[in-house]
C-alpha cells in the first residue's frame, strides 16, 4: 500500500493511493493535483547518513568511513512533495541528495541485523539538500549546511515494506529540469539498512515513525533558482521539488 498525508479542502488527511487517485479516510477520492502534499511521516527523530556510498565519498575526496557517519535533523527540515526549497542568495554550491528513507515500525533497541527488517514499516524518498558554502569542520555536516528550513523534501508516499522487497537493490535517479543527472543503486551503500539499524539501536532507542536517510550516491551538481528537481527511487516513488530564491 502507498500512503500519503495531504492537505485537502481545509483539513489534513491520511490518504492511500487507489487507481492513481488519493482516497481519504472518509472514502472520498480526490485528484492528486488537488491536494497539498505533506511529509508522509512525522518522526520524533530523523537520522541521516553521510558518505554512505563509496562513489560519493570519492567524488567529495573523502575516505570511506569505517563507522557510519550519522547526524540528526530537526522537524523544521521536512517538506512535502511538490514543495519549494529556498536557495540562499549568496551561496555558490547547493546540491540535492537523492536518498532512500527507512521508516521505523516500532521501538528498536539492541536489534540484530538479521532481524532488522521486522522493525521497518516502509520506505519513502528524501532529497536531503546541502548548502556546501556553509560547511564547517565542527560536527560536520553542521546544521547551517544541512538542517535548513524546508530543505529536506520527503515523500510522496510511504510504501509498505512488503511492496518494495529487497531495499538493497533499488535504482536511485535524480533529474534536474528533466535531465538525468544522478544515478546509483542502493546495493552500493557502504553500511546497508540492516547494519544501520543494528548500529543505531546498539546504543540508543529508535522509535516508531523515526526515519533513517541512508545517504546518496555520486552525482552532486549545483542547482539554481527555478530548477525543478525530481528524485526517484525504483518501487518507492518520484519526489518533485522546485528551487526558489530567498524573496
Amino acid at each position, binding site marked *: 500500500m502507498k500512503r500519503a498525508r495531504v492537505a485537502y479542502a481545509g483539513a489534513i488527511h491520511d490518504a492511500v493511493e487507489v487507481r492513481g487517485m488519493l482516497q481519504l479516510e472518509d472514502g472520498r477520492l480526490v485528484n492528486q493535483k488537488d491536494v497539498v502534499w505533506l511529509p508522509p511521516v512525522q518522526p520524533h527523530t530523523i537520522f541521516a547518513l553521510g558518505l554512505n556510498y563509496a562513489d560519493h565519498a570519492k567524488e567529495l575526496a573523502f575516505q570511506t568511513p569505517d563507522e557510519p557517519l550519522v547526524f540528526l535533523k530537526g522537524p523544521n527540515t521536512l517538506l512535502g512533495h511538490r514543495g519549494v526549497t529556498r536557495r540562499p542568495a549568496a551561496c555558490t554550491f547547493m546540491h540535492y541528495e537523492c536518498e532512500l528513507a527507512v521508516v521505523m515500525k516500532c521501538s528498536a533497541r539492541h536489534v540484530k541485523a538479521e532481524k532488522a527488517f521486522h522493525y521497518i514499516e516502509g520506505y519513502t524518498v528524501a532529497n536531503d539538500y546541502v548548502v556546501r558554502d556553509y560547511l564547517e*569542520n565542527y560536527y560536520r*555536516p553542521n546544521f547551517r549546511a544541512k*538542517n535548513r528550513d524546508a530543505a529536506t523534501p520527503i515523500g510522496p508516499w510511504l510504501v509498505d515494506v512488503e511492496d518494495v522487497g529487497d531495499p538493497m537493490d533499488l535504482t536511485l535517479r535524480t533529474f534536474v529540469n528533466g535531465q538525468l543527472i544522478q544515478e546509483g543503486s542502493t546495493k552500493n551503500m557502504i553500511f546497508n539498512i540492516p547494519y544501520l539499524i543494528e548500529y543505531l539501536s546498539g546504543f540508543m532507542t529508535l522509535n516508531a515513525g523515526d526515519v533513517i536517510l541512508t545517504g546518496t550516491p555520486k552525482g552532486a551538481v549545483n542547482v539554481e533558482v527555478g530548477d525543478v528537481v525530481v528524485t526517484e527511487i525504483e518501487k518507492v516513488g518520484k519526489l518533485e521539488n522546485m528551487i526558489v530564491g530567498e524573496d
Partner: protein
Amino acid sequence: MVNCIIRLCGRAQPYEATLNINENKLKLHNEWMTIDHFALDIPITGTVYGTLLNYKGAISKLGEAVYEIPYKKPPEAPILYMKPVNTHLAHGAPIPLPADVQELEVGAALGLVIGRTACRVTKASALDYIAGYTIANDVSVPHRSYYRPAIREKARDGFCPIGPWIVEKAAIKDPNNIGIRVYVNDVLCQENTTANHIRSVEELLADVTAFMTLFPGDVLLTGVPEGAPLIGAYDRVRIEIDGVGVLENPVYPENKSMEGENQ
C-alpha cells in the same frame, strides 16, 4: 518567588505553580509543599538543540587546534546538535551508564524554552520569543574530537535530564549574567556563568533562527562550560542555575536504570 510550569507524572496537562527556590518549595493550588513531594515529569515537549563551544573558556581550551586539521579555522555560525527524544529524562530519574563506558561528562546548560515560532528573529526582539528557562544536563560520553557529529557520544538513552520546571521569562532579569554550578555527591565541581558566553542569548537566537526555525516548546541549550565534571555509577549530579533552580539525577548502570528493559 517565581512562576513556573510543571508537569506531573500521571497528568497529561501542564500546571502553573509558584516556586520558592531558597526554601525548596512549590505552591500548587494555593498550597505550599516541598519539591520532593511532587512527582515531576519532563516539563518540555519540543525538540532540544545543543550549542557547541559557546563558552569562551571552551574555545580557548582548543587553542591553536582550531587552525589545524581537521578544523582549519574557528567556527563561524553556531554549531548545533540535537538531544533527541530518547535522551530526555525527568528530574530525579537515573542517568543510564552504558555498559561499555566508565565515566560520563556532565554538561550544565541553560535551556531557552521557545514561546512562539522563531524564524529569522533580530537580536533586538530575540527575548520576545522566549517563554521561559529550564536546566539541562547535556550528558556525553567523553570525546576529544568535534569534527564529526557525536551521536554515539551524545544521543544515548537518558543522556538529557531536563527540568525540573520551566521558570517564566520574567524570573530572569539578565540571562547573560547568571551563575551555573555543578555538584557531584554534594561536592562543588564546576562553577561558571553565562556572562562567559561567546554569543549572548539574543545573538544565539538571531544566528540560529537565521537558518532554522524554532517552534513553540523547542529548547535551545546555550552551551556547556569547559572543564566538564565526570560522573560514574552511583554518583549523584546536581546542576544549579541561579534563578532557574536545581536539577538532580543519580547515575545507575544501564541495566539497573529502568526496570524491565531488555538487554
